[in-house]
């Protein structure tokens, strides 16, 4: 059982895991300060006969310090996070040469339409497959998400990618897989009684293997 984030298999793991660790350190420091402080106070200032509490209403200086430090930290965190957010999800973030795959979510399956051997969606050689997502490694992929019925969510933990598929909307999400292997795509938005079983197998392959698979699959689809 892993005690940390999942196996890293995309280019997003760098920024996301890095940010996660940075936040863990910052919040960890705050956590230790507060919890250790509380335990220390609980022990040191417990009631004893003859003791009296120190009568004070506060300290403006303390207020300024412990307002300013969190505020500055949060603003800095926001600026750094936003930089990566714009890169991953921004309106103009999708790399121009990203390989397109259309994914139509439906209770309770993923209908995956490949662009076929010509590499373009919307041409006659496109074909649709259920619940099997084949991806070439090492190049940006753009997934065109749509939904037949309710809100679903495209989620591959090892790629750190998540995007809701909303009926009535066509939403693009991009990522780049870095490690060949088999992964799982899960639905990450409650979509009905079959939500827990709405999964697809994800095969990340080298470009050569992917091309071989593509040829075979396109042939089977047209027969």
């Amino acid at each position, binding site marked *: 059982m892993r005690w940390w984030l999942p196996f890293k298999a995309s280019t997003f793991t760098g920024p996301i895991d890095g940010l996660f660790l940075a936040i863990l350190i910052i919040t960890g420091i705050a956590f230790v300060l507060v919890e250790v402080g509380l335990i220390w106070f609980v022990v040191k200032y417990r009631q004893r006969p003859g003791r009296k509490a120190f009568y004070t209403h506060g300290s403006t200086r303390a207020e300024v310090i412990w307002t300013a430090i969190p505020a500055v930290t949060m603003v800095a965190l926001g600026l750094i996070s936003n930089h990566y957010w714009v890169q991953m999800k921004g309106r103009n973030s999708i790399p121009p040469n990203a390989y397109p795959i259309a994914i139509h979510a439906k209770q309770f*399956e993923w209908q995956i339409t490949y662009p076929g051997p010509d590499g373009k969606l919307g041409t006659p050689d496109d074909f649709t497959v259920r619940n*099997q997502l084949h991806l070439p490694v090492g190049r940006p992929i753009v997934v065109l998400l749509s939904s037949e019925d309710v809100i679903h969510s495209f989620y591959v933990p090892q790629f750190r990618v998540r995007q809701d598929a909303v009926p009535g909307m066509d939403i693009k999400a991009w990522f780049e897989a870095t490690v060949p292997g088999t992964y799982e795509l899960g639905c990450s938005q409650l979509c009905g009684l079959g939500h827990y079983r709405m999964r697809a197998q994800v095969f990340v392959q080298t470009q050569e293997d992917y091309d071989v698979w593509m040829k075979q699959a396109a042939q*089977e689809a047209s027969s």
Partner: protein
Amino acid sequence: MGKLGVVAATGGAVLVLALAGWMRPGVPAAQGGGTISGKVKFTGAKPAMPKIDMSEEPKCKAKYTAAPPTEETVVVNANGTLANVFVYVKSGLPATYKAPAPAGPVTLDQDGCRYHPHVFGILVGQPLAIKNSDGILHNIKAKGTKNRPFNISQPAVMTSDRTFTAPEVMVPLECNVHGWMHAWLGVLPHPFFGVSGSDGSFTIKGLPPGTYTIEAWHEKYGTQSATVTVAGSETKTADFSFAAK
């Protein structure tokens, strides 16, 4: 002679009573009754049925060792007949007709991620025992318009019962976890229906005498009707023919 006569008379009485009990007067269509049978032919090029890729469900895929499963929208038999045609009496029964109580439930089985049978009929009020033999999650969504729709899940080997309250031809059934799974159910107020099998033939037995409109329904090719008059316990033939589109 006297003793023998008593025994014979008693035996005869017993026999008559047994026969009478067996015949159960008052229940229509028990013994005898007319029969309508026929074949559903298919003309034209047999359409190729796409293969079903069950890779996402290894437990089901493993059950197909001989050949991979194909979709069942159009099943043309080796002898050029069409299977899975639902043939039923649409009209012609007397207004006073009352269907006998069904003998037991109709079973719909989910095995190998397919519905067995693909097309079938049931009486109004007769229990449908929906069986999950696969042991993996199936849901059964019944999209009736005259019958209350339902959507129930079966995550393990189990049987769930449902009944239908209104005649409806046909109620579509589907599984949403395995999008290729479809079945069709005809709910009728009488037991006079049949489904064409692997030889394309169907039989409807036990009809009271009368003139009937029978309808043949296919999920892709629509419906066709025929009028048949039966009297007594004769057998009449009604053939249908669907053409490839």
